[in-house]
């Protein structure tokens, strides 16, 4: 099993300028919708996740990804 931690997700987000600015104010369970990020930022985040972890994220899956912790859990499940 490949464990992906919220810290690793934070590291990845830190490489995306729009997310890097927001990270200090975001807890692992902060909803992205409450962080003021727009759909463009979310698409860029998914793009980086797909590039880094080699997983294709579907429209259905993305509905369940709304926090940093969600992403880590989702990737752990997908990469088992």
């Amino acid at each position: 099993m490949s464990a992906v931690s919220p810290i690793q997700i934070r590291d990845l987000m830190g490489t995306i300028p729009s997310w890097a600015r927001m990270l200090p104010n975001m807890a692992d369970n902060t909803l992205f919708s409450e962080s003021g990020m727009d759909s463009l930022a979310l698409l860029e985040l998914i793009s980086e996740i797909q590039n880094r972890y080699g997983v294709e994220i579907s429209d259905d899956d993305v509905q369940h990804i709304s926090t940093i912790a969600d992403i880590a859990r989702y990737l752990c499940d997908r990469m088992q």
Partner: protein
Amino acid sequence: MSRRVREWKGGVRLAIIIGAMNAMQSKSTIVLDVPLRGARDYVHSSDLFAVLDGLAKIHLSPDAHLQSLVLRRMAFHKVIAHFAPHADAFGTFSLCLGQDVTEGWLVESRDAIARRVAFDETPIERAAVSRTGRVLLPAPVAGYTSFEQMIVLFKILCAQLRRGHWLLTQMNLITPFKDHLPLELATVQTVLGQLMKAELRQGRGSIGQAQMVLANAAGGFS
């Protein structure tokens, strides 16, 4: 030419480059003369590209060029280029001269844009050859810049994925466009049918990458 002379000339060139960069940054802000294009009520990326690339050539050197352009939303009013970080920026850019890079921030003012220019992209659409995941021009289309041709090709490529209002959100050039060479775009990545990254090719080589995103019904990314 002796090694000492070469080093001296190199030092002078570096000093000139740094001087030009500093001079531009010391201006702090420059109001960009961007028109509205065709029937659009927002500033088109082609006009931002043209004015910023021109800025590099006028203020830095004829060899300088716009290296990157990032647009987070549309702008409807006159645009001001800042050479220091700005919290309200809707976009960023970088100008490149050799190894030296000057960064800038694009801020929308409250002043209306009075100038409008005509734009007909159908000659580029007609000339484009579209294959799955790839769109190219057999030859450059006269009367259009490489950037204008790239945008039209990119929209054709995006339409293969989903029809809608696609907007350029990012472009990074390894080398400047060469207007005498035909362009080719190839899909690199798609995300949720709403984001596309493409490689830009000219003369059989990659010149960089660009990204387009499908705007919502209101024309934004909210």
